[in-house]
């Protein structure tokens, strides 16, 4: 079985489980919506302030909601010891990492669509202008978040790890994604998308680094 097929089998399995369990629809999306509403209420009714802070709130909501998605993708592996089966399977463990990252990324893309629509409605934000830059930032950020989350999410199933280990590791590491994503989105929404190239480049670099790191070190995390 080729590497790509192995990764595809892992991704297809994870997505099937997600669709059956409706975890994203039932937990992650309501969590993101609750965060956005809470952020909006805490900032107050000033329309211009809400619109200025909307990119930051959008990315923060996605970041926190992503952590839930990362944990869920490994919960299914721990329910009846399936992770041990992946350890024992004669496959390249990097395929497990990339398959899981692909499945998480697909879930996050769906979440992005819902959250963008929600932000647009709640904060009266127009997504016009440089929408291509917004989409590019979201997609590149999704890849980076999926890579970090799939790499460290496996620690939730380690008998030596605590429940908080994933947010404690993922949230600081995801700061470059958060920063670049907020900046690129802000520029795009202000009609200055042409100036967002550097931030998008940073997102690309982050994606490359964490996809490569995950491919190399995931086996060690899985075996431990």
């Amino acid at each position, binding site marked *: *079985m080729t590497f790509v*097929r192995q990764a595809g089998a892992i991704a297809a399995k994870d997505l099937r489980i997600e669709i059956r369990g409706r975890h994203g629809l039932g937990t992650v999306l309501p969590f993101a919506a609750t965060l956005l509403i809470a952020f909006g209420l805490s900032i107050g009714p000033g329309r211009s302030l809400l619109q200025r802070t909307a990119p930051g709130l959008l990315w923060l909501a996605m970041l926190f909601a992503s952590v839930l998605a990362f944990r869920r993708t490994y919960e299914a592996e721990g329910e*009846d*010891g399936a992770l041990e089966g992946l350890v024992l399977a004669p496959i390249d463990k990097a395929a497990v990492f990339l398959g899981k990252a692909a499945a998480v990324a697909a879930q996050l893309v769906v979440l992005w669509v819902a959250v963008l629509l929600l932000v647009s409605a709640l904060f009266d934000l127009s997504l016009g202008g440089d929408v291509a830059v917004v989409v590019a930032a979201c997609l590149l950020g999704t890849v980076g978040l999926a890579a970090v989350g799939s790499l460290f999410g496996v620690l939730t199933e380690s008998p030596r790890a605590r429940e908080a280990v994933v947010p404690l590791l993922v949230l600081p590491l995801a700061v470059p994604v958060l920063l670049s994503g907020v900046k690129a989105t802000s520029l795009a929404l202000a009609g200055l998308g042409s100036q967002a190239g550097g931030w998008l480049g940073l997102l690309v670099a982050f994606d490359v680094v964490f996809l490569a790191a995950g491919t190399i070190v995931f086996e060690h995390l899985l075996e431990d």
Partner: protein
Amino acid sequence: MAPSSTSNALLTAPNEPSTSIEDSAVSLSRVTRIFGVTPALVRVDLEVARGEVLLVRGPNGAGKSTLLGVLATTLAPTYGSGSVLGFALDRGRDQIRRRMELIGHHTRLYEDLTARENLRFWASLFGGDTSRVDPALEAVGLGPAGDDRVRGYSQGMRQRVAVARALLREPELLLLDEPYAGLDEEAKASVDGLIDETAARGATVVLATHDPTRGGAAGRTLYMDAGRIVPDPMAGGRAP
């Protein structure tokens, strides 16, 4: 009998790995495994011939599961060395895993997938041959329930799916860690059937169980206590 006639393509790879060091199914030399400061295995020496069915008995905490974990390569020895199916435990892990099946406390099934989907997934990871899925489900009496989600299965039905997964592969070494725990007679019979089938084609079986009514196919019984292989008290204190 050597299991070289198996039909599993994974077991007949043309490139014989250089890590092959001997021909017995299991050979352990002074293997010790320590968790923290607690020794779970203490200087265990063990030889198991190819084709042998070995029964491992002992009280809770005797080290049976740790022994099987070492053989399955999920646990590395803290000290000592050994080989499984001719491959060194430290360097031949991937080769051992290709040839071995472990049925343990967990059935390693995904609850939101059906039994058939679970078996297809594992079959695809173990070589891509999914044509055996339906016959394997039929063999364990789960053909009609194969499209039900595992979440609704009893423990016995789950263990029968785990048995069906082992039937997909024809492993050279079958490791069973308390496979009868919590099972009804039908499910226990499925496990017995798997052991008989595995032994009949000349593969090696290591079975750890508390159930005194099981293990009849075993040619030898090993008794463990406090991480050591000790004389079996039920056999008048004879050493294994």
